[in-house]
């Protein structure tokens, strides 16, 4: 076996051991070393050269990046997740015909969908979705993310929150927690438009707080315009005052003049 390859696999083994030990500082260090070493292989993307070891090298590299993605979830670093995922993606798309399928593929793709949802990047979410086959869409990991997006768009926030109980994989927990925060902000935004007032008790339940104190702090920080009195939260101030009655005269003059000019050109 190629000595370079052996070296990488040995380091990779140590890296995996460090992950199980939860020694994340060593992990990140070893990961950067691994990434540098991977650049030495000519069979990896973007070159994709045919070498005698290419299948082996590709599989190893894919494994490394898969672990890198999972590591970034564990150390809760979203930027690292994005970077590592994009490095991993060519192995799923362009190298599809050269490699046996990875058991982690759908789980990681689902994680990525969830990340896009948390960051509210819906356009990218749908772009990624188009790349999946119909069999992939049936996979529980992917299905989970797709259903979440639907409930989210509809406004059925209860369903989003209850989905937290049946996550398909424990790594999903981190993003689901983030999602809960996003959902709270959404609910707060909807409530102030939809209700005139809410009793503190109801508001606490709706915004998923465990104590009234937390609710008061949240409203002070995020929504200072909310008014709390007589055991209720009033949203009156957040609402728009009467519709603007002013005539947008400058804009109208501009428009009319431009019609006149265009008409003159026609005649």
């Amino acid at each position, binding site marked *: 076996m190629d000595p370079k390859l052996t070296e990488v696999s040995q380091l990779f083994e140590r890296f995996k051991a460090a992950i199980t030990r939860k020694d994340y500082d060593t992990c990140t260090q070893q990961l950067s070393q691994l990434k540098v070493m991977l650049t030495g292989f000519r069979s990896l993307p973007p070159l994709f050269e045919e070498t005698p070891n290419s299948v082996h090298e590709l599989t190893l590299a894919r494994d490394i990046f898969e672990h890198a993605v999972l590591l970034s979830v564990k150390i809760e670093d979203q930027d690292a997740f994005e970077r590592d995922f994009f490095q991993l993606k060519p192995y799923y798309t362009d190298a599809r015909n050269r490699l046996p399928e990875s058991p982690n593929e759908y789980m990681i793709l689902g994680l990525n969908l969830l990340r896009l949802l948390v960051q509210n990047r819906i356009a990218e979410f749908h772009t990624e979705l188009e790349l999946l086959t119909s069999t992939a869409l049936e996979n529980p990991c992917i299905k989970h993310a797709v259903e979440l997006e*639907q409930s989210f768009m509809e*406004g*059925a926030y209860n369903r989003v929150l209850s989905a937290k109980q049946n996550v398909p994989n424990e790594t999903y927990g981190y993003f689901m927690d983030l999602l809960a925060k996003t959902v709270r902000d959404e609910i707060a935004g909807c409530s102030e438009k939809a209700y*005139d007032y809410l009793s503190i008790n*109801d508001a606490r339940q709706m915004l998923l707080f465990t104590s009234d104190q937390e609710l008061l702090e949240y409203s002070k920080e995020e929504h200072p315009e909310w008014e709390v009195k007589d055991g209720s939260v009033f949203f009156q101030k957040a609402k728009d005052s009467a519709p603007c009655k002013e005539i947008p005269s400058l804009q109208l003059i501009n428009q009319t003049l*431009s019609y006149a000019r265009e008409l003159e050109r026609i005649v």
Partner: protein
Amino acid sequence: MTQDVEMKEQLPQSNSLSSSSTPSTLQHLKEIASLIETGAHAREVRRIVRAVRLTMALRRKLKASLLSAFLNSVLTPGSDAHARLVLYLPKEDEHDMEVDTASSITQAPVKHSLPEIEIFCYLLVLIFLIDKKKYSEAKACSSACIARLKIINRRTVDVLAARLYFYYSLCYELTGDLAEIRGNLLALHRIATLRHDELGQETLLNLLLRNYLHYNLYDQAEKLRSKAPRFEAHSNQQFCRYLFYLGKIRTIQLEYTDAKESLLQAARKAPVAALGFRVQCNKWAIIVRLLLGEIPERTVFMQKGMEKALRPYFELTNAVRIGDLELFRSVAEKFSSMFSADRTNNLIVRLRHNVIRTGLRNISISYSRISLADVAKKLRLDSPNPIADAESIVSKAIRDGAIDATVDHANGWMVSKETGDIYSTNEPQMAFNSRIAFCLNMHNEAVRALRFPPNSHKEKESAEKRRERQQQEQELAKHIAEEDDDEF
């Protein structure tokens, strides 16, 4: 996706060809060749465009014997190009060929062949091979031709080259190997850009977009599209395609308003004969309009020749219009194979949300006060906790401005507000403005389209007249510029 190519490519092939027409077709081809020659010598692209158009009319009449006779007459027999091209033609009519060779040598004195003629021969052979479904030969032939095109740098070849790029991509698509040529197309696009070959750029950009979209690579397609140079369209067909691809990309990225504009424009600009293409455009446009919350008129579905193809979309629209989730689900299921063939399945999943919105809007218009439990029942939400779901759905709809109401949490009901008088707002003024802007824009574009092609009337005009005209034009330009300055 394939339909819009099929519209042009799968013309019925007439196999029975009377022998009397053969010489006349050959004659036609020779005329076209001479047209190309004059065009090449005079450096007039216009003539070559006409030649290509005439060739397409002869397409059905192409036969192996005819082609070899033509090759013999315009290319030097024994030359490289000739030898290469003859290889691709089937050998079955060898007998015919010999006769033709003999006659053509005696008839036409062999001239020095131009690169334009050589490329034109490639084009003919390629079209013939594709029509006869000999795809592997077609692939070999097109690849050889593309290699040749990379070396030739003449503006008069560009028109022919653009056609060849198209067939090059087509024969790879027909065999399902589009991914293979992506790198090559990108290289060709770069070459075309460096040579200022705008028609080539236009064609290649479309081919690349098609290539990416074939594999659902919307991200890459959008990145390429947004960075590629844009200019005024040279060919209407290419422009239609571009608009269609653009519309698709924007739909996926949830920019529905822009997507609708591109798709409707593509459907409107497409030639009447391109039925398959127009059907595709309409399908996408219908979905995009539904996603925007509009309900397309019935006439959209009744267009000539489209009733059957648009039937599933008609039923879908109906379900969205009524706001019935149950009906929507059954329609989506009933036609799911069709939707997945159109690759619109994911978009239809997105529609569910609109169905709920429409239902909710109907409820809010009909009732001034309704309990949330009834809302959940009417919307047929099947969930473990329908009232809480209904409440959050209603409050989101209120925030997004879909309905004008308030929710009373303590009593568990929704109170609709009185609908305001729309004429007291700026809404009518805005609608009026957008319509006028559309009409004026249409007029300006029509005027622009009526202009003469550049240089086409130069020869008739004397130097003095030209000076006079230029002066006038300058004055006019100054005038317009001043007018623009006047504006505030």
